[in-house]
């Protein structure tokens, strides 16, 4: 889309040093760059700029000129990545305008972090070329094209020892999932009242109940929140007692109705 005055981004390792471009605007095709670091590195290497003394203002101007050309056609995410870099460049430029101490340590240079990232990125481009060579070499070897049909795995034929209890025990242990993607129909709302009756039913069986048991394994936020509200409500009504040994330790609910809950360990042995 844009005329190039410069050889295309040759593999960065080759680092073909071209003559300094200087004044001329620097045209590059943005499409070929994997991201802002790639583009920035190209601008620097193609113009044989000392990476430890990047002329920030000039580079920033070139960078903006290149991305400005294509910004409208870019996907939002990609545009954001380039704009983020542009913002960083402008910030560095501003910092450089501030009065500097006479003997500036290299580490304190506002450009230091950018240089570190560029070198790190360039380093991984070297790894990319190592991998590319290995891939090409491997691609010259061919596996057997056809292998005989093999008998199907046994599956059905072998009997499986698995009880429903074992399965349900595993189901209870499922850790809290991330925000659900396509779990259950959204119509299924969780009410505090449901959780209260769950707690009441559990206390018919035992004198103490693990808080986690109230919402696992479907530990969606809604379940956790409802369980928490239910527990707090019941505690407020003096129906239960909530205990936690220390922060992040398991939370236990004790029933108060039987009166046996005063010790830390319920009555039953």
């Amino acid at each position, binding site marked *: 889309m844009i005329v190039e005055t410069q050889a295309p981004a040759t593999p960065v390792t080759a680092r073909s040093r071209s003559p300094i471009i200087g004044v001329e605007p620097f045209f590059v095709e943005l499409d070929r760059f994997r991201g802002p670091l790639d583009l920035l590195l190209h601008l620097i290497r193609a113009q044989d700029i000392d990476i430890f003394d990047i002329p920030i203002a000039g580079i920033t101007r070139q960078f903006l000129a290149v991305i400005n050309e294509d910004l409208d056609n870019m996907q939002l995410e990609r545009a954001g990545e380039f704009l983020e870099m542009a913002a960083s460049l402008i910030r560095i430029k501003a910092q450089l305008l501030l009065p500097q101490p006479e003997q500036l340590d290299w580490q304190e240079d506002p450009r230091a972090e950018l240089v570190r990232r560029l070198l790190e990125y360039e380093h991984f481009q070297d790894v990319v070329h190592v991998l590319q060579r290995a891939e090409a070499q491997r691609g010259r070897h*061919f*596996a*057997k*094209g*056809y292998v*005989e049909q*093999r*008998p199907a*795995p*046994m*599956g*059905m034929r*072998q*009997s*499986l*020892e*698995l009880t*429903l*209890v*074992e*399965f*349900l*025990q*595993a*189901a*209870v*242990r*499922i*850790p809290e*999932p*991330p925000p*659900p*993607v*396509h*779990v*259950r129909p959204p119509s299924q709302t969780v009410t505090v009242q*449901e959780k209260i009756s*769950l707690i009441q*039913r*559990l206390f018919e*069986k*035992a*004198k*103490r*109940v*693990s808080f986690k*048991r*109230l919402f*696992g*394994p*479907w530990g969606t936020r809604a*379940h956790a929140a409802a369980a928490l509200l239910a527990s707090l409500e019941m505690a407020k009504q003096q129906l239960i007692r909530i205990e936690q040994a220390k922060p992040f330790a398991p939370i*236990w609910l004790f029933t108060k109705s039987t009166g046996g809950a005063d010790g830390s*360990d*319920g009555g*039953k042995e």
Partner: protein
Amino acid sequence: MRPDQIVEATLFASQTPLTASEIARADEELAVSDVTEAIQVLREAYEAEDRAFQIYELGDGYQVLTRPEFAPYLEKFDSVPRPPYLSAAALETLAIVVYRQPIGRIEIEEVRGVGASSVLRTLVDWELTEVVGRGEGLGRPLLYGTTSRFLDHFGLKDLSELPPPEELPVVLSELQEALEFDGAAKSQSDDLDEEG
């Protein structure tokens, strides 16, 4: 490169049987008669060296196959003996699939925090889970669900017979109690026990 080497490489790497004239396309200097001659050379060499494979004629094409007398070994190789029960990881993955199906591998890994591909393969091999579709989005990931064998195994008519989420702790306690009542008073397994 000798003609028989080129023919050997071609027959080895091809997915389908190739005719002599197809094989000859590998190299301009290769005539069809060179190919049939090379195949003869190779066959005799494989025979003389007791190779486990041979070149067979299928239709009007040629293909390298392992010799039939090795079939029993390959069969044995495939039928890896495995214990008749599921590992804890497989069981956990099964539970996730059951209650959150259809679900992709990545989502399972997000729940479990470790890779799930080999465990999923085990469950598919057991015919407890199967691919039920493809998800939206990049790469259209495979989605897994449970099979009829899963239902059969527990004698369920459909998935709704499994305890719904909220009931699970209660159902488990009841089941556990019933079992204890049944058998000797064995000490409660720690994952069920509300007593600590």
